[in-house]
């Protein structure tokens, strides 16, 4: 199989994945107990009002027709209107998604800038005190809940020292960066811990690999060996890790955005739950799952580009 075929095959996989995600969200929303309509209208709604609402939402037709309708509407990006915000769901999500994506990007950049150098220090000093210290700190970081880290940073650096704003998002790019720095740092810790752990193990494995011995034996300097052989392999593994971690980062973003009052989709999710805004919850779950599957796809593509063995 050549790389072109592999690429086409991988791209084609995304279509059935999207359909499955759509079916899953639909089935979950219908199968779980709890009547959406009476939840939306409140307990005092008359049977007549409920019936009218059900007809309006198309809930009086067969489940299969509803499913096809839902999928067809989803493809057109029509998720209905938000009940609490009185706006099209797609518009609400489209306004807030960039905020969350920016937050995640900042978190990934921060996590990598923290984890990459520390992983090298730890691996090159394996089982000596710098390694022990770094691993202990990250172990504690992994055991700390995101909202707690966020609250501590918020109290010390925003409310206390006033270096950063307490919340919000700002109006231009510079302000966005400034507002998202603390939330991004909060979100980056657990991911930095995961990257550090994997990278340290990866570097240790590469350091004992035969091709590194060979590179040294042929007289390459330690710096060249580290840069060309160790770093390259470590980076491929890290790219995969970023891709696999997008879902966890989205979950962390839900909590971080709530702590820092960042107007992204995570906070929208929590607000919608408290407002029982089912169309938004359903559409958001769908959009986030699609985002994760796109991240998986992108990971595979970048891996193919970085690692000549993929797709051969």
């Amino acid at each position, binding site marked *: 199989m050549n790389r072109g075929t592999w690429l086409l095959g991988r791209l084609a996989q995304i279509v059935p994945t999207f359909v499955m995600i759509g079916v899953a969200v639909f089935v979950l929303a219908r199968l*779980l107990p709890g009547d959406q309509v009476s939840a939306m209208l409140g307990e005092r709604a008359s049977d007549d009002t409920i019936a009218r609402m059900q007809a309006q939402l198309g809930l009086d037709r067969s489940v299969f027709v509803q499913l096809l309708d839902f999928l067809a509407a989803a493809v057109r990006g029509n998720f209905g209107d938000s009940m609490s915000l009185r706006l099209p769901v797609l518009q609400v999500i489209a306004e807030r998604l960039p905020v969350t994506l920016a937050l995640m990007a900042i978190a990934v950049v921060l996590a990598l800038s923290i984890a990459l150098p520390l992983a090298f220090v730890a691996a090159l000093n394996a089982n000596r005190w710098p390694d022990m210290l770094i691993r202990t700190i990250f172990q504690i970081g992994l055991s700390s*809940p995101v909202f707690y880290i966020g609250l501590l940073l918020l109290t010390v650096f925003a409310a206390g020292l006033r270096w950063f704003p307490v919340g919000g998002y700002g109006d231009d790019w510079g302000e966005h960066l400034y507002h998202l720095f603390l939330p991004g740092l909060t979100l980056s810790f657990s991911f930095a811990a995961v990257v550090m752990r994997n990278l340290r193990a990866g570097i240790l494995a590469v350091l004992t690999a035969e091709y590194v011995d060979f590179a040294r034996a042929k007289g390459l300097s330690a710096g060249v060996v580290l840069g060309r052989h160790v770093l390259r392999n470590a980076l491929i593994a890290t790219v995969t890790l970023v891709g696999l971690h997008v*879902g966890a980062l989205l979950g962390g973003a839900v*909590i971080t955005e709530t702590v820092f009052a960042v107007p992204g989709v995570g906070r929208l999710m929590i607000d919608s*739950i408290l407002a029982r805004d089912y169309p938004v919850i359903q559409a958001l779950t769908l959009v986030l799952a699609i985002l*994760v599957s796109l991240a998986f796809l992108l990971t595979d593509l970048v891996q193919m580009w970085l690692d000549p063995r993929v797709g051969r």
Partner: protein
Amino acid sequence: MRVSLSLLIGGFLLALMLIAAAVPDWFAPFDPLVFDFEALSAPPSGDHWFGTDQFGRDVLSRTIHASRIDLQIAVFCVIFPLVLGGAIGLLVGWYGGVVDAIFGRLVDLVVTFPFLVLVIFFVAVLGPGLVNVYIAVTCVGWVPYAKLMRAEVLVQAQSDYVAAGRVLGYRMPRIVLRHILPNAARPVLVYAVTDMALAILLGSSLGYLGLGAQPPTAEWGVLIADGKNFFTTAPWMALFPGVAIVLAGLGFSLTGDGLADLLAVKR
């Protein structure tokens, strides 16, 4: 076999938590629910080591009593997915073929949903509260257990003792439950201990968001949510329950790491 430092520290932290959860009244100096209007939002002192909250309730006593709820979260958020996922993994690993192919597609589908988002989605539909959190976590969290168990069963099914069992004419339930399960369980159980650390983080996060344990239940996440509005004026209200979460999380993850070393489980 060597007992590592992580196992010792982790075991110690877990023992502390277990004792606190079993007999909170031995350690809690005050009733966690009683208001003391003489000492509202009082800073840590000789009487109130961790200070008091805005109603004068003793934060140390509330933190100790909350360990019972959080330990329950750690156990229930793991045991139900473990049983469900373990059973699915056993069956899928044993039957293989079409069942395995369907299982593979299902796993591919579930992993595209961010774990926390899916749990929150379930809680949104079912309504907030701890019981619904357990239901949600079971529906979402069985996947890693099923994958682990399936992989173990595939290995064990190749072994001579399974072939011997078949030759002796044992039926599937006997071979799977009496012979394969005890041999396949070890990595799954080690993973479960580490997973309890994540369960504590998840449970307290949902409590913090108002979706998990409901006030006035003392749960660490709920305590922090209560204290967050006073973080600048009375930081002790949220600070100490947070330390409890970190210590409990460390306890489970260090114990998990130590057990993995001790039992030579590859991860």
